[in-house]
């Protein structure tokens, strides 16, 4: 076969191969050098988001490692839900649900729902969404204080039947021109509260600390 292929082609192939190896090595090296720091950055980012709902003074455990996973189908239909448990001096303080509202206007909305041990909401924050700028994106705290309206609410207050947006006969505001986004978030918060009420013991049950917290990476 060798006589059929021009020598130049071989040389070009080798040259390309060498550059390929060099490039890949450079990337691998950079990855190795930055791996630890990137992991730390994700952990710090998640902690910062949780601390917005639950200030540091309220708990003293390693929140990011005291975690259970609620398998898909039990709380959130398609996605596992991570629950961070906050405790102080051994007592249960709050549970932070990292859950997903599947029915946003432009896809799923990832949120943090913090539930105090007494069943009241410590806070809700949107982590990631694709909602329409200027309309649905007002579920973000940066764009509007709407999401603060969940603070302190619980399954009795308002009663379950009124845990919806006003358009659906509930107590929570929707936005002019955008009902689907607030509806999705309100439903997800309600579902988290329901799960908390029905499985409270499971939610706080101690498990062996995980080796390292599993945190979602930036989406591409």
């Amino acid at each position: 076969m060798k006589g059929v292929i021009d020598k130049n082609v071989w040389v070009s192939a080798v040259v390309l191969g060498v550059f390929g190896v060099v490039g890949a090595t450079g990337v691998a090296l950079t990855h190795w050098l930055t791996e630890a720091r990137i992991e730390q950055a994700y952990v710090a980012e998640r902690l910062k988001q949780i601390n917005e709902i639950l200030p540091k003074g309220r708990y003293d455990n390693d929140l990011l490692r005291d975690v259970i996973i609620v398998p898909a189908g039990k709380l959130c239909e398609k996605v596992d839900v991570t629950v961070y448990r906050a405790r102080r001096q051994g007592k249960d303080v709050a549970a932070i649900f990292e859950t997903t509202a599947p029915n946003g206007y432009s896809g799923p909305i990832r949120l943090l729902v913090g539930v105090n041990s007494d069943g009241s909401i410590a806070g809700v924050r949107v982590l990631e969404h694709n909602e329409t700028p200027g309309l649905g994106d007002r579920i973000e705290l940066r764009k509007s204080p709407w999401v603060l309206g969940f603070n302190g609410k619980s399954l009795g207050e308002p009663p379950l039947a009124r845990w919806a947006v006003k358009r659906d006969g509930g107590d929570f505001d929707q936005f002019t021109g955008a009902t689907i986004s607030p509806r999705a978030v309100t439903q997800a918060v309600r579902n988290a509260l329901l799960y908390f009420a029905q499985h409270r013991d499971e939610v706080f049950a101690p498990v062996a600390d995980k080796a390292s917290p599993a945190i979602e990476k930036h989406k591409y």
Partner: protein
Amino acid sequence: MNSYLEILKNGLWKNNSGLVQLLGLCPLLAVSSTAINGFGLGFATLVTLVLSNTIVSLIRNFIRPEVRIPVFVLVIASVVTAIDLLLNAYFHELHGILGIFIPLIVTNCVVIARAEAFASKNTVPHAALDGFAMGLGFTSLLVVLGSARELVGQGTLFSQANLIFGDIAANWRITVFHDYPGFLIAVLPPGAFFGLGILIAIKNIIDSHLEKRATAAAPGVVAESSAGTS
């Protein structure tokens, strides 16, 4: 095209990648919604251009012409991947905001255009400066367009400066219009297109004024600026 000053002027104005060559428009339009976002991606592109041009120039005598384009792409992709990892590690929040547009720098035509048209045919210092000049021209455009869109769209300037410059920059945000209702179109892609079009028009107006002044000052002598882009 040999003096350093020529290279600088070329990248910044005469052959500006966004205003004249019209390359790299996808990231330009998508990320120029605020001044800081524009600066962030512009800076990443500038570093890519300098590194890519330098490396291509260093290896220019070892690349076989038949495989030069794949080799350029390899170099650029490796450089951008490394930059992406470094941004994730050291500017984590900005990395989350710029998202997919960092890896997309690989597809930014300016980078491969400069590798092919300049870096592969010039010495390392010239190539590096060209990368810097093109990157600076691109970043300046991103910052100007980003500032305009932020001002018209949100009424502020330099919001979220802390993403790049750290906690000291937390107060850099200037609220130019208070209680601004917001002009959504400016923040969305159509606003980017309009903004870029206006900036290109302004540049062309400036150029034609400069040309008129040059020919008025020395009639009959071919003005340097009218020699066109080169």
